């Protein structure tokens, strides 16, 4: 109440000053006015940020935000006029010709949808397209998954991986007793922001070992064993982003045992199913192990990469519960998270996915195109590795072929990355991550030259 009265008082001189300032052509900002300060010297000096929109701006205190570190790489790349520039920033697949790819089977699905008179644009339910949800759950958990057959899984369509993580995070912040989530070190740059804004408190667990450029398994287990009961653990289902380092199946089993014994709650981020190894079933192994033991977990699925549907924003959040009854109640609460966020999800991408997944022949075509993408990336890994060996670049670069998925964690440091951007027009994130999907046989030599130069000239 006092504040409101104060603002009312401050507002009046502010307005008059503002009007005067406008007539004089002076840039007046109430927040910086010394007149204001002296007028109310004994009271709160800072006027309301929303006072005095005349002559000043209510948005005076809004500062320029920096570009998103990952998406900002593409922004910088686009500005560069160099003909030899290479964009290894954001994880979007490129063909050998360096072009974006829309899968043939996706085009076919779109054609079917456009020609189908019964395909309308009515609001989807809050939880999204029902067929899509069922098919997505089957894809990730396996069609014969007991959890599905027992109706213990609730699946809601969300905006790709990000949206699924956010909705899942918000749900946990409201309904789970423990509000801490452990994320691997390092992880996708957007993870901590998503979970913080969802209302969770973010901690990290050791993951990457820079000395071996592999998994720091011992510390991973140690960190998770110290987590409080009920804490949420974010796990990359396969093709860890940014490192490309995945646990072996044996290690996954040990992680599972630990998580279950400590009563931790696993939250899988599955953005690369089928894209990592080329095989959809293999890339879902980690998740299916956890589901098989009867325990609960969350899974965020994305179709951005494996179906090339990046801009359509298609994904799904699944929550595997102990009982069908709980799953029903959980779903009803997920709707309360979604409705005030965007009401219901976009139909186009989900319709494409459902069309493909439910048709045997289209599904098969998809697996073929998917394998082709994954294989090309594996070839790029081999080519880059060979190119560095040919140049005699100092260091052990075998991690390039050991790591899996779209990204390679090169091990290059910030200075080396800056050097490569400046001198060789290589665009990548400052943590040394490169998107193999952005490489081609033509550009591998240039990248190898850049890495060689960076490693030999900058320490």
């Amino acid at each position, binding site marked *: 109440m006092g504040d409101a009265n104060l*603002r009312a008082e401050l507002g009046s001189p*502010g307005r008059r000053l503002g009007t005067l300032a406008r007539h004089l052509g002076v840039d007046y900002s109430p927040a910086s006015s010394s007149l204001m300060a002296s007028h109310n010297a004994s009271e709160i000096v800072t006027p309301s940020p929303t006072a005095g929109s005349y002559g000043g701006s209510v*948005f005076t205190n809004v500062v320029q935000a920096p570009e998103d570190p990952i998406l900002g790489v593409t922004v910088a790349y686009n500005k560069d006029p160099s003909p030899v520039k290479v964009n290894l920033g954001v994880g979007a697949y490129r063909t050998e010709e360096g072009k974006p790819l829309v899968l043939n089977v996706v085009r076919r699905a779109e054609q079917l949808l456009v020609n189908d008179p019964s395909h309308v644009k009515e609001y989807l339910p809050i939880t999204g397209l029902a067929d899509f949800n069922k098919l997505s759950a089957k894809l990730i958990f396996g069609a014969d998954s007991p959890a599905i057959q*027992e109706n213990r899984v609730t699946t809601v369509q969300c905006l790709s991986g990000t949206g699924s993580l956010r909705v899942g995070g918000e749900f946990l912040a409201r309904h789970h007793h423990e509000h801490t989530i452990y994320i691997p070190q390092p992880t996708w740059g957007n993870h901590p922001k998503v979970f913080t804004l969802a209302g969770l408190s973010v901690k990290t667990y050791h993951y990457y070992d820079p000395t071996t450029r592999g998994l720091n398994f011992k510390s991973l287990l140690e960190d998770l064993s110290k987590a409080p009961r009920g804490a949420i653990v974010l796990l990359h289902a396969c093709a860890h982003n940014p490192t490309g380092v995945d646990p072996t199946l044996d290690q996954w089993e040990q992680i599972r045992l630990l998580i279950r*014994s400590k009563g931790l709650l696993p939250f899988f981020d599955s953005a690369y199913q089928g894209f990592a190894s080329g095989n959809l079933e293999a890339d879902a192994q980690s998740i299916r192990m956890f589901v098989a033991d009867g325990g609960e977990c969350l899974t965020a699925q994305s179709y951005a990469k494996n179906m090339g549907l990046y801009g359509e924003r298609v994904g799904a959040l699944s929550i595997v*519960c102990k009982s069908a009854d709980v799953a029903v109640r959980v779903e*009803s609460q997920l709707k309360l998270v979604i409705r005030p966020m*965007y009401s219901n999800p976009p139909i186009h991408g989900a319709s494409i996915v459902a069309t493909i997944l439910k048709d045997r022949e289209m599904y098969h075509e998809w697996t073929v195109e998917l394998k082709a993408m994954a294989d090309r990336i594996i070839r790029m890994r081999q080519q880059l590795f060979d190119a560095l060996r040919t140049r005699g670049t100092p260091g052990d670069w075998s991690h390039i072929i050991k790591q899996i998925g779209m990204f390679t964690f090169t091990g290059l440091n910030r200075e080396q990355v800056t050097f490569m951007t400046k001198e060789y027009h290589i665009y990548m994130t400052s943590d040394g991550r490169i998107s193999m999907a952005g490489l081609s046989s033509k550009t591998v030599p240039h990248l190898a030259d850049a890495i060689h130069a960076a490693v030999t000239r900058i320490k």
Partner: protein
Amino acid sequence: MASALASVALSTTFARAVPLPENSMRIGAEKKHDNPLFKGKAFRRVSMAVSVNVSRFEGVTMAPPDPILGVSEAFRADTNDLKLNLGVGAYRTEELQPYVLNVVKKAEKLMLERGENKEYLPIEGLAAFNKVTAELLFGADNSVIQEGRVATIQGLSGTGSLRLAAAFIHRYFPDAKALISSPTWGNHKNIFNDARVPWSEYRYYDPRTVGLDFDGMVADIKAAPDGSFVLLHGCAHNPTGIDPTPEQWEKIADVIQEKNHIPFFDVAYQGFASGSLDADAYSVRLFVRRGFELLVAQSYSKNLGLYAERIGAINVVCSSSDAGTRVKSQLKRLARPMYSNPPVHGARIVANVVGDPNLFNEWKQEMELMAGRIKNVRQRLYENLSEKDKSGKDWSFVLKQIGMFSYTGLHKAQSDHMTDKWHIYMTKDGRISLAGLSLSKCEYLADAIIDSFHNVD
């Protein structure tokens, strides 16, 4: 019993395969599933107990169905032939079929022919869309556009755009309140709640006149703390269909200016209310003309029939282009951890339709047809009500209200009666969606309204 079992299970360590007591509530763990995925000795099917038996989500209660979207669910479950869905605001043809606009089909065919890619949009959305959506709203020759003072971000239809704005308000105006009309669209409160922006209501609907409580509205806006965000419906107020007159808009602007409030428009029906895009933008353009910094959430769900594509925008008009740039950057910072970047399909449709003169004209014609059908239905309903109701009640509010919805003045019990006896589905606040009404069903609806109004207390 369950909690005793749970505590036994919790205290059991996982290291030993401890069989659980009889009558255990475990589901699934004992069954031997021959899962073909798990071959080889590297991994064996785990059939032993997991340490926690009871779901960690056991305490999650069943949420009630959404009051608006839940109506359609109930309608679908009804098997009666006479049923009528006047719940959610989605346009229906006279045959009560969903309607995909011809221009939309044309745009989609064009897009497919061009073979456009599906790359991520920038966080702020499709540039071509952002440009046309601001021009459509403010007018391309408006000074705010010429001077680059509008920060426009593609959002997930109206809801998503409102939510981004609310999140922005929470972060940069943490002490500010939102003022919403009483009544307003049911989801407005949820949006502000989830964004943690406190809100209070200003009087709006006057049940005595079935019209605008203008004095109450002005008084409440005046009484609110300085610098509040006043949520205004740009046109076709939802749920009442009652809009201020131009003179009233000027007075509303006066009191907002006096209190240094910030106008926050929800524009979900531009072109759909009167049939004219420019006429429906009158209120927003008035406030812009008067020099306010303001926010506008737009939706293309109704006017382009793009409901499920989730296409809209949040526009922030700032006093300088520098402020606009900064505001835009911060809106992006809120969008990234919510969904990273918005869906491309709907944005391309809008950009194609609005950006092509032929398609744009065709759109305007289709929009006039849709708005025209609703006006016709209003007229027929009014006539039926006036003829059949012998009480002398004034039903002219049906004609005076504008847009997709009509606030009938029926209260909850009466609305329930509409459903229970007449199989007419509507929201419990007495709102009916005229978009879901055909001329042929007006008489039936009139009978139902008269019955519910007079015979239910």
